[in-house]
């Protein structure tokens, strides 16, 4: 009991001030417009300059890992939509893949194509929303609404095929839940065409803007070595020139048959991360373009037993979500529920680099740097 109090009362990592009243400590969050959720940052300031940042987590901890351990292998997938809610398809995909790995089920070609298309559409939607939120963090409100319009088109397609807009639960072990809607192909093709024009509009509205460029250039520097040592993945690491795209390095499903580039920028700053994401949208559009006309006919779901039981052992699968590398690790004792399940979420590692990135810069830079991390708080906390 006493020990616990001691630990709580321990002085945190705030450097000792030279004189009393040298530093100002402010709490950004848990309710704050820039944290996009219930992230709590304790910031030590000297004037406007940031001395130290300490993220406090746990405000939205729902113990998803523990919950998953009490659910069967079919059931636990739906919970994972609630982790990184902006790339729920990809989360579900990772879980379906790891269960399939354990069951040694061959997923039909059609299901694989559908899954990859859905993943990429999700990535586009997630990056679009991020783009809007990023501009809003920097004080421009209009792009946010434009981003939502673009995302809405994707949501509509999702709604038609998967039956939900955010928490789809479309991937099941062995394939996908239902077949594609008859309108899917036509609507997606129209969407891709429109999207290329929209991306040009975005460049005009935000990317080229001199204020925006100045806010992002040289802000939140994260060198390649540090990106690796903090375990950053996804666009955050790729903005520092670290090649880490799981789709390229550990291809799953049909990614090794697809033509697309891994986007690498060497700017190491917020602008580089921003450019990575915008270019990734174009790559994702390219992937969907390749697949949409060539979806093979056939089953959309492999035959699986009614009650799934993974053999005894450990299973791991990584996928590339919109935010980085998501790992799903399952320890099975041979029963119908996982013995232990662990998610390696990209947001958590990316957030850990924040202090390093913005130390010594202004409050405005904190917002610009934090925005490019693309934090989804439920993904960090789970």
């Amino acid at each position, binding site marked *: 009991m006493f020990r616990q109090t001691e630990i709580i009362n321990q002085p945190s990592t705030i450097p000792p001030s030279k004189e009393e009243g040298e530093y100002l400590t*402010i709490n950004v969050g848990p309710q704050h417009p820039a944290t996009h959720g219930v992230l709590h940052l304790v910031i030590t300031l000297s004037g406007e300059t940031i001395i130290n940042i300490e993220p406090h987590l746990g405000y939205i901890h729902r113990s998803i890992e523990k919950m998953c351990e009490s659910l069967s292998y079919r059931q636990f997938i739906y919970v994972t939509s609630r982790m990184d809610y902006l790339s729920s398809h990809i989360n579900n995909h990772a879980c379906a893949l790891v269960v399939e790995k354990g069951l040694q089920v061959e997923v039909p070609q059609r299901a694989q194509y559908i899954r990859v298309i859905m993943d990429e559409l999700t990535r586009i939607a997630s990056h679009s929303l991020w783009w809007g939120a990023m501009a*809003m963090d920097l*004080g*421009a*409100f209009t792009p946010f609404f434009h981003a939502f319009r673009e995302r809405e088109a994707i949501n509509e397609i999702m709604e038609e095929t998967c039956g939900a807009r955010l928490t789809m639960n479309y991937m099941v072990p062995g394939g996908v839940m239902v077949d594609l809607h008859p309108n899917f192909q036509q609507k997606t093709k129209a969407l891709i065409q429109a999207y290329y024009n929209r991306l040009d509009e975005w460049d005009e509205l935000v990317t080229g803007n001199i204020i925006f460029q100045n806010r992002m250039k040289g802000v939140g520097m994260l060198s390649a070595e540090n990106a690796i040592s903090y375990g950053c993945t996804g666009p955050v690491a790729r903005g520092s020139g670290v090649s880490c795209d799981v789709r390229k390095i550990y291809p799953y499903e049909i990614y090794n048959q697809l033509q697309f580039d891994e986007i690498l920028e060497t700017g190491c700053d917020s602008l580089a991360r921003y450019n990575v994401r915008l270019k990734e949208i174009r790559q994702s559009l390219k992937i969907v373009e390749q697949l949409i006309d060539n979806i093979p006919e056939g089953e959309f779901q492999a035959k699986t037993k009614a009650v799934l039981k993974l053999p005894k052992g450990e299973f791991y699968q990584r996928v590339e979500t919109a935010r980085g590398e998501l790992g799903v690790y399952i320890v099975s004792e041979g029963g119908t529920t996982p013995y232990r399940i662990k998610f390696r979420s990209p947001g958590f590692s990316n957030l850990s680099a924040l202090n390093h990135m913005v130390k010594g810069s202004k*409050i*405005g830079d904190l*917002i610009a740097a934090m925005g490019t991390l693309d934090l989804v708080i439920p993904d960090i906390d789970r």
Partner: protein
Amino acid sequence: MISLEKIATLIDGWLHQHFNDVITLLIECVLVGVGAIALFALLGLGLVWMERKVAALMQIRMGPNRVGPKGIFQTSADTLKLIMKEGLTPDGADKLLFNLAPVLVIIVAMLILAPIAFAKNFQIWDINIGVLYVSAVSSMSVIGILMAGWSSGNKYALLGAMRSGAQIVSYELSAGISVLTIVVLTGSLQISEIVQSQQTGWWIFKGHIPAIIAFVIFIIAATAETNRAPFDLAEAESELTAGFHTEYSGMKFALFFLAEYINIFIVCAIGATLFLGGWMPLHIGNVQAFNHAMDYIPSSIWFLGKTLFLIFVIMWFRWTFPRLRVDQLLNLEWKYLLPISLVNLLVMTVIAILGWHL
């Protein structure tokens, strides 16, 4: 034709008939005060509604459309809500300063109203140092903001107030210098004379390129002085939640909100007076028919139209641009706007001495 000038002389004449001079003056003071407050309320409601509509259309939305036709009473309903809310004063706040700050801000906004010419010969006070008076009084509003930030006892508010202080003090310079370029041309600080000097053409047309540069700098500086995006660092909602008025609620918050819009109106009115000819109609050279047609539009409409156009431009800025960082804000002022406007003033002086502007 009914004009504001005629109404004013009519009232003045009627009062002089019935009362002696002192009482007439007193009654007129009261009338002006009531008129100013009424104008404030109307402007506040109207401009907030306009801002919301402009923002909505730029953001592919509809904007307010439920209360009244086209949502025109939405802002009145919002104000009613704010009036009924509790005017909370935080425990840690400096009570006197905390309650004084919004009043101070609104009084300053009210004071600047005095020398503005709303229509032909319709002015509260045609002071002979009108432009100087405006720039002097407008710099006082920063005191209100600093007071609000300091007395709130909130760190966000303090940071916002400090930013606002640095910002307004520096941008006052380039605003003042761009105003000076016009004063150099007219040779007078009196608002009515400045307007009169633009009878043959507005300064933005007559003053060659330096006048256009001065106009652009004035608009930028005005945006910054009124704490509007992209210079809304004092509020910076994604950084400081709400900046200096974080702790304010209810009517006290509404006063800050109102003062912001009144200030926009006033700086735009000044801009319209100095560069766009105030209430002066648009005249093109010797095209008599056109000039006569323009004269038929009442001068108050001209003034209001020009001011609203400038307000629209400032709103357009707000809904397009991201916010600057605090050091970039000061860089922009000291490295770009101030040197440019100084050189511009020099060029303008040469033009004025050589008489090229006539």
